């Protein structure tokens, strides 16, 4: 507890101090000011737009991931039978390998001199040195790579919820005259809402603050909020604005967490 207190809470408090200029990188006597907070919240800087763009991208990623992972979880939990744990492990293993590597792999594949483009050149489908423009350094790339990264992970909570589903309820629904789609819409899907919500939150929250993937495959078009924070600290030396953005992100994420904690049951994951 002490460890977290010292190395987790205190750093965040220091960030808060920076954001209102109580501490600053260069000695100044301007005193505490909410100037940068005001500028940011009134949307006078570019960062508010960037924030909404990140939210939109995170939403797309989460929706796509859940849509892909749901049939996967459904297949594993209710259809696959005895081999389901082996098949599940096969899905999860990529998630346990290096995150950076998996992003790197996509960079190698989608780059303008990458696997797909040079394959198109050699097969004559496209003129050499005329790479497909949206393949890399675009929002599409960032979303694709993030979906790739999160699908295996999200299959877990969905699998667990469906696995715990009482299958006799499905049969009951069936006996009472519902066909398979009826059973699915009126029994299975409503019962798996907690798993879906958990999966959604698990992807959405880390994706808003994402900065490694966009900086590797996003270029300028795929920049996200996290990149802005990082560059304000590393290149811009505007620690005050950076702290405002960082703290804002923490507040948003915290609020999301509190809001979703009724759906989120960490215990669901523990039973794996």
């Amino acid at each position, binding site marked *: 507890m002490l*460890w*977290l207190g010292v*190395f987790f809470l205190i*750093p*965040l408090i*220091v*960030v808060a101090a*920076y954001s209102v200029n109580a*501490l600053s990188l260069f000695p100044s006597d301007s005193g505490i000011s909410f100037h940068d907070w005001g500028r940011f919240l009134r949307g006078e800087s570019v960062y508010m737009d960037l924030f909404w763009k990140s939210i939109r991208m995170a939403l797309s990623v989460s929706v796509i991931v859940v849509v*892909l992972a749901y*049939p996967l979880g459904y*297949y594993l939990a*209710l*259809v696959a039978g005895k081999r389901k744990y082996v098949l599940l*492990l*096969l*899905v999860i293993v*990529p998630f*346990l*390998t*290096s*995150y*950076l*590597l*998996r992003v*790197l*792999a*996509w960079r*190698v*594949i989608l*780059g303008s001199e*990458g*696997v797909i483009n*040079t394959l198109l050149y*050699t097969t004559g489908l496209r003129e050499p040195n005329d790479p497909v423009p949206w393949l890399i350094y675009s929002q599409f790339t960032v979303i694709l790579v993030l979906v*790739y990264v999160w*699908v*295996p992970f999200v299959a877990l909570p969905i699998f667990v919820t469906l696995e715990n589903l009482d*299958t006799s309820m499905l049969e009951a629904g069936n006996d009472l005259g519902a066909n*398979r789609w009826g059973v699915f819409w009126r029994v299975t899907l409503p019962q798996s809402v907690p798993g879906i919500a958990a999966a959604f939150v698990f992807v959405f*929250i880390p994706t*808003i*603050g994402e*900065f490694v993937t966009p900086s*590797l495959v996003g270029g300028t078009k795929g920049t996200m909020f*996290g990149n802005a924070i*990082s560059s304000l*600290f*590393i290149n811009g030396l505007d*620690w005050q604005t950076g*702290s405002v953005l*960082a703290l804002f*992100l*923490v507040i948003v*994420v915290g609020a999301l*967490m509190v809001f979703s904690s009724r759906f989120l049951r960490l*215990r669901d*994951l*523990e*039973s794996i």
Partner: protein
Amino acid sequence: MDAAASPGGRRGLSVFYVLLIVFLYAPIAVLMVFSFNDNRLVTFPLAGFTTRWYRLLFENAELLDALKVSMVIAAISSVFAVGLGVLASYALGRRRFRGKGPVSALLFSPLVIPYVVFGIALLILFRAVDDFLIPRFGTYIGLGIHSIVIGHVVVSLPYTILTIAPRLERLSVYVEEAARDLGAGPASTFLRVTIPLLLPAIVSAYLIAFTLSFDEYAIASFVAGDVTTYPLYLYGQVRIRIGLPQMIAVSVIVLVASMVLIAATEIWRRREEARLAV
């Protein structure tokens, strides 16, 4: 009749599963192919088979150093993360105390904090401490392996708790009580009964923490100072596109090693837990 899916539905879902597996493994397969490709550039057409990149990487001192640094950091930070994880799980699972709710919320909050924010916060903290120390004592802490270790312990702690706590929960309190009745003190009960029974969970928690730290880029990028970890090195090399095949080759080694390790321990853990079933 099977209420979950019609025969057609089953087939559709199986196909979907296979497609998704292809999607998940194809990039990894591509990496593997190009790590053996005899061309300095990672492009088609394939230029023939070579193991040059694997040979070269063992002569690359910078890369080997970076790998060593990452292993040291991962080894140390996982020891702390597991140690604290055991204590925290014990406190959460076996003790009642005031403020349990807020404490467990605090313990799990590193799961959701954006790493970029946490990395920056740590950086600022170290700076603030140094700003305080230098004028008064003429000394400073600076950044380096220690700051990365601190950051990694914070973010891996929730994972170690999530691995250890459920195991502790399934462990019957009666086993511990029996040990106490047979005359063992609280400390020796903990060390000689609880810990050995938790061992499988502790081992997999250690591995999870190790992998997490070994691979962690975001936090390290802010608090590394002039130390280069493996992810930092990889990131730098990938951006400038020089020596890409070598990077791919080392990635493949790390990838295969981690997959084998993870699969092996997962199997071992399940078997061991079944054997120790209490």
